[in-house]
């Protein structure tokens, strides 16, 4: 008896609860727990590095950012009018995705395309050319160093974008309103 079915069950329950939740504060906390359970699943799949990231970013930093946003906005979701069209679109998309799953190889299937075509080359090549025990690092840094450079640039660009949007506007507000400088919004 493995623990995976329970964790997947928890994920589904958590997703339904988050959707039904009107309190955005509780929804933000629950989405953090959702990420923590996902991190547990990644550990069970032997993807420890992905689990690190999910736990630190998904459960940690993004929950904090949600809470930071909620300190600026109302914390209750407004009760909107029920509209059937988005629901139909979501159900159709979900069914198409489920249909697509049928074509995917089983988890851990040794005859899956990823395992017969590229993975053996990486496993052999890393030992022959790079002499690094961790194949993931060799793939990210050596085989795909150019991609990783691009990803690092994307993260830098994201931070720059957030700073341009949020930090700059804060200064504008300070200039526009003639407040005494005790609002604590200094740089």
């Amino acid at each position, binding site marked *: 008896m493995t623990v995976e079915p329970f964790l997947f069950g928890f994920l589904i329950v958590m997703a339904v609860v988050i959707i039904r939740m009107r309190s955005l504060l509780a929804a933000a906390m629950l989405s953090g727990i959702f990420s923590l359970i996902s991190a547990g699943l990644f550990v069970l799949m032997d993807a*420890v590095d992905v689990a690190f990231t999910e736990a630190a970013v998904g459960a940690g930093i993004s929950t*904090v950012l949600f809470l930071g946003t909620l300190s600026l906005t*109302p914390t209750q979701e407004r009760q909107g009018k029920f509209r059937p069209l988005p629901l139909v679109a979501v159900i159709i998309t979900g069914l198409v995705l489920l249909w697509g799953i049928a074509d995917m190889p089983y988890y851990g299937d040794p005859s899956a395309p990823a395992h017969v075509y590229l993975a053996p080359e990486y496993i052999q090549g890393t030992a022959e050319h790079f002499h690094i025990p961790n194949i993931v690092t060799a793939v990210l840094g*050596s085989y795909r160093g150019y991609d990783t450079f691009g990803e690092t640039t994307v993260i830098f660009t994201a931070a720059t974008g957030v700073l341009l949007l949020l930090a700059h506007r804060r200064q504008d507000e300070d200039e526009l309103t003639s407040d005494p400088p005790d609002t604590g919004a200094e740089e």
Partner: protein
Amino acid sequence: MSKPNPMRMREMVVVREVSRILIPFILLFALYVQFHGDFGPGGGFQAGVIFAAGLVLYGLIHGLDALQRAVPPRLIEVLAAGGVMLYGGVGLVTIALGGQFLEYKVLDPHHGEHWGLLLIEGGVGITVTASMTAIFYAFAGRDTVQNQEKR
């Protein structure tokens, strides 16, 4: 979030003391993940987000001002760009030494691959830590609804 009531979190003894014990280990674990990336799971990105999570935890407990005294926003902005430049710089150095972009083995005939990976992972780690912290600063530095209504 920490701005309007910077005292409240700090006054919770359990939260304060547990975080005081945990934060050094979170930062140390981040450095382990960073420098052990060649051998075990992890690398620059994972180390960066763990380090940033440690900093964010410190900021949550002790307030944004205390964190910004330890890690000034100016330094964060320089580091975010510096990590990308370190990564790109390694690529340019390998070209200057006669190899291709990011062809690490021209750095050193025996350990070039290790040096190259160490440097680019360092660049990734620096940029990720700084970017995550910068985003936290941008969010946490905003005024609260209450403060805006006071105006």
